[in-house]
């Protein structure tokens, strides 16, 4: 009884391995194919059959003659991915699989953020580049991506990064001078460009001068600049505050041509201060000491 069972199991195993071999023995497939390139599949036997090449990215169906070489033309299979091949003949079905890999880099997608930022910000600009071939497949083979940030002044910043899984990224510093900068990512002769607007930072120091103007005080700031010497944009609000005899007066004035001007009542012993954003300027005490 035991020997019969062993024999039966052995028979099943032999039949199983034979069938498994037969499934792929007649079908000769490439292991990998580059997207869009021509390739061929060798079949065995005779008679008519239907060839299916199936994957989520693409599907093909061909009527073929068994025993002949099945040729697929350039562009027939252009989407990268894993493909199952099934060859259905009159009496047998064979299957196999192969991979289609991306072709050479042909397009680059650059995401640069932010599009507008203050000057002199360390690591303030980020660039992410995804590399694609001509069929919009992500190129997973490592490629060198050159990032360059060229502003209105100074030497351009350059970094070269090797892609991992089709993506490369870097961080750049904003320049010390305001203006538009070109952020370029390049692979070979393929490039993508974004414009980064570099604007002045927060005011660095704020000073005002106060003088008598009839019964009132004429107050004017010196030109307001950031720490790199760039003029702070017109429209930035400057706040003047006057404290007198227990009273208080406040005036908000937008910068015009780099300076803010206003008039306030002249009270003996009043204290006048100036501020913009979180930056405090100087303080002036008017009249009697």
């Amino acid at each position, binding site marked *: 009884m035991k020997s019969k069972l062993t024999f039966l199991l052995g028979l099943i195993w032999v039949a199983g391995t034979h069938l498994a071999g037969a499934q792929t023995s007649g079908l000769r497939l490439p*292991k*990998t194919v580059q997207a869009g390139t021509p390739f061929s599949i060798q079949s065995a036997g005779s008679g008519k059959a*239907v060839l*299916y090449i*199936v*994957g*989520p*990215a*693409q*599907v*093909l*169906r061909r009527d073929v003659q068994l025993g002949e070489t099945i040729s697929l033309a350039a562009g027939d299979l252009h*989407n*990268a*991915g*894993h493909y*199952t091949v*099934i060859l*259905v003949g009159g009496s047998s*079905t064979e*299957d196999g*699989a192969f*991979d289609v*890999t*991306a072709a050479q880099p042909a397009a680059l997608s650059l*995401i640069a*953020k*932010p599009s507008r930022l203050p000057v002199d910000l360390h690591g303030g600009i*980020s660039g*992410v580049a*995804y590399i*694609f071939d001509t069929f*919009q*497949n*992500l190129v*997973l083979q490592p490629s060198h991506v050159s990032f360059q940030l060229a502003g209105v002044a100074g030497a351009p910043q350059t970094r070269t990064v090797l892609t*991992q*899984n*089709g*993506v490369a*990224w870097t*961080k750049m510093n904003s320049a010390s001078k305001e203006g538009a900068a070109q952020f370029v990512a390049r692979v070979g002769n393929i490039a993508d460009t974004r414009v980064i607007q570099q604007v002045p930072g927060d005011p660095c120091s704020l000073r005002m001068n106060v003088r008598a103007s009839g019964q009132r005080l004429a107050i004017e700031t010196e030109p307001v600049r950031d720490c790199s010497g760039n003029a702070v944009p017109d429209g930035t609000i400057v706040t003047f505050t006057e404290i007198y005899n227990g009273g208080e007066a406040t005036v908000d004035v937008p910068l015009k041509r780099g300076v803010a001007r206003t008039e306030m009542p002249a009270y003996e012993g009043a204290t006048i201060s100036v501020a913009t954003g979180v930056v405090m300027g100087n303080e002036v005490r008017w009249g009697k000491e």
Partner: protein
Amino acid sequence: MKQTAVRRAIWRPFLLAGSVLATLLVWGSDQAAVRVEPTDSVGPRTLEKQTETAVIRDYLQAWNSLSGALDQNRVDLLNRDFVGTAKEKLVETIREQAKLGIQTRYQDGKHDIQVVFYSPEGLSIQLVDTVEYDMQLLDHEKPLRTQHIRARYVAVLTPTEVQWKVRVFQAEPE
């Protein structure tokens, strides 16, 4: 008569528990086993647990959408989870399948997911999934072959108003 009623009352919780367990097993059999590699070293942006959970959930949901869309040759089923190139390619496949009278049934069984990149500005996240699935091919509704497949997929997801959507979905040689 009274004894029978008592017996029934005793067995009722066991029967109930058994049916709940059976339901869970049946339900469980349709769910793919999912393993996510630790994400501590993912960068350059720090990946918060909440983001990780959402990304994995939406990616797995995308597999369900893909499966339904390719099985029923329905392009509209892709709208929820795919955008950009990934969607365009799947739409192309579905249209070709419909033209040829082909259907493909994808049943994912196992995912081994590794989040490999989270962009500094938070606008894209990339993961690599070593996935095992069964693919059944039907020609004019006649099943031809089922193949068990193990493949390495690279996916790039981008955030939309309410969820992450798959923008790049591509298998590569292991």
